[in-house]
């Protein structure tokens, strides 16, 4: 019985792809391709090194990712670029511009975080709270007790901070540092 199936099914499949029409073909491709792929599709990280923090991470956007609206073809496209994860974050992989044995160099941590989380950060700053903002504050060395003040400051200066952030994540971090340095309560802490 199983022999019978293995003989007949490829035939049926072939006929389907040849004669089944565009929609059918696409559906078959999508399902077969997707089914046997790894358990997660790849990111396509597009980085513009010119505006970056010096390690190749500029404005980073997840591009060509198989979004709900555009499943299918992009699944394939997402995997056609050079590897980011395994090289940049590879364990004991030596040094790269951004990382050392898979961990961010200390001087790139803040800028990389801002570059990689720009959208979530902007939401948190507008709301004056959130885990991305708290994490950024921690990376910037702002003590937990002063963080509420920092959060309120980012909300207060949201428009000007975002104007800086639109040019580059580095500019956002720079603007944040300046805002901290000139803030009556935060400046004292960061100076200590």
């Amino acid at each position, binding site marked *: *019985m*199983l022999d*019978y*199936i293995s003989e007949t*099914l490829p*035939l049926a499949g072939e006929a*389907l792809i040849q004669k*089944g029409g565009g*929609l*059918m073909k696409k*559906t*078959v491709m*999508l*399902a077969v*391709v997707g*089914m*046997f*792929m*790894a*358990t*997660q*599709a*790849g*990111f*396509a*990280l*597009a*980085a513009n090194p*010119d505006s970056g923090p010096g390690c*190749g991470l500029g404005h980073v956007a*997840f*591009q060509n990712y198989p*979004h709900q*609206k555009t499943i299918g073809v992009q699944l394939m496209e997402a995997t056609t*670029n*050079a*590897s980011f*994860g*395994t090289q940049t*974050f*590879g*364990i*004991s*992989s030596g040094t790269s*511009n951004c990382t050392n*044995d*898979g*961990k961010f160099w200390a001087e790139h941590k803040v800028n990389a975080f801002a570059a*990689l989380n720009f*959208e979530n950060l*902007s*939401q948190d700053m*507008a709301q*004056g709270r959130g*885990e991305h903002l*708290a*994490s950024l504050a*921690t990376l910037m060395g702002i003590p937990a007790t002063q963080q509420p003040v920092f959060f*309120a400051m980012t909300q207060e200066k949201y*428009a000007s901070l975002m104007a800086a952030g639109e040019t580059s994540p580095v500019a956002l971090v720079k603007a944040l540092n300046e805002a901290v340095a000139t803030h009556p309560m935060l400046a004292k802490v960061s100076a200590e």
Partner: protein
Amino acid sequence: MGFWLQRLGPHGVFRTLATFFLLVLLSWLVPPQGFSGPLGDQAYLNELQDRAAVLRLAEEREWQVLLHYRRTWLGGVESMQDDPGFFLSPQGKSNPREELAATLTRFFSDDLVGRSKQPAQCAFVARYHWLQERLQFDGARLPPLPCERFRQWFDEFNAEAISLIFPTGFMNNPSSMFGHTFLRVDGKDQTPQTRILAYTINYAAELPPDTGIEYVFKGVAGMYPGHFSTIPYYLKVQEYRDIDNRDIWEYRLNLTERQVTRLLMHTWELGNAYFDYYFFGENCAYHILSLIEAAEPSVHLLDAFPAYTIPVDTVRRLRESGLVGEVISRPSRSTLVRRKRASMTNDERGWLDRLIRNPAGLKEDGFQALPFDRQAFVLETASDYLLQHSAGAGEEGAPYREKNRSILRARSELKVTPPDLSIQPYVKQPDLGHGTSRLGVGAGWRNQRAFEEVNFRGAYHDLLDPEPGYTPDAQIEIVSVGIRHYHDQSQARVERFGLINITSLAPIDALSQAPSWKFNIGMNTIRYNGCQLCSNGVASGGIGAAMESSLFKREVYFAFAEAEANYSQAYDEHHRIGGGGTVGMLTDLTDRWKLMLSGSYLRYALGDKSEDIRWFAGSRYTLSQSWALRVEYNHRDRDDDVLLSVQAFF
């Protein structure tokens, strides 16, 4: 699988090259670790090797786990590890004793080994520590090396605990249907608010650039290398929560500090390693378990997965082994939006739906009349929605990002904080759902002929199975078979066989308009052209839409346009190809009782020109987490089939 950098850019390439040459230059000028060469004396090496042989260390479980040895059919062992640099003896892949002897030898040298280019003591730091523990190295006769690189990497984690992270299945990306698992190293200085700063330990297949359709076959056949990497958790949260819209479950593992250290040491060693990635067997979930075995070799986790590994089964296995502590969920962005929207008044909901289409509405008096904290709540929800639709959408997401700017600017002007809503995923904790394999025993009638049936399904879940823990309105069946014995026949026959049968229903509402789709390859039995029980090969697929209501409890309606190809001896020209449509509904009558009805019409224009009208009515009653009752009625073209069965999940 994994991450892909679109373009390094010319500057990046030059920088990399420049760094490389600089490093080469430096390595000539500065000899690493003083003088290369023997660290201890030959006599002590011989002594250690003799003691290791007497103690039969190579046969101990720890050594077997650290080298990833697995028994072979021929009675020997072989390591699953595929990078030759992972072994210090040329016979290491299949000879644990040789490998142990060679490892001891290399510990007496500071020559650089493996892909990570370190002295053996540092490249294989877990092996070193275990052997040191068992053989009590004399530091004077075998001087320990400082292993700066490992030390720095290890300290950077500042590890307190390990969590297993499980982003649940994601139907709209078929490659992610079963979910994924990876580890997160929770740092001592992190709080729940800064947990996203943790590094993860992720195992993923690396696909070469310009991979085409061939990766379907290569992936199944294990022809891609899988590597370990430490991607920051915030990137994984973005990937799963924001882009894929998947709920993430975080299982804190009960590991002692010593076990956490062992796990990290072994992870460091795996920087020298790759495994051939098998999408069904030795996949992400499998090798993540192997790391946990390295933390505590006395727990046997991998033995439970000889053939294939479904991520949720590995979570269940960990729970059964007593390794799972606190469980936390991180709901998907779409869950956040839906839950927040559900908590709003009709008026607020109306504003939300307007603002996400046109943020200019926030200037209107009606919106301004809402209390400030309610305005803030609506704006935050609108921002969540806009982020959900712009994340990962590239250029297509630009209009959403634009609107989000306006929404957030307005939000930043309201200096209030709306009360936090505790948000739970819609899907129950995955490891508390039914088992992924199913066995059924039943009886029924086909056109007045009585039969008994046994059926089995390798994996995973169908539309009528009990939902807790599974993505609602989604079906994935892989390798299912139904065997029947008709009373008037002497032999049993294979009545049905399914290779793959997938259905994804995505109810359309104000917030989401994703398509529904289905795909099926299998074989069933038909009555046609005088043939009473004829085997019929089927390949079909369809695309459609679904809607939901809550008139009774919860109802989902669906409609598909579909195409189908059949192959059977019963047809003229042995085949027929055509298209048609299906409409149907699913309804929960109670928490335990579910009903499904559907009707299809298909017209075959090629091969055997014919048409087919089908009805299906099915009902499931849940007895317990692992038991259910089914009644199914199938009508298709001159064929009536009723089956009553009891099903066990395991």
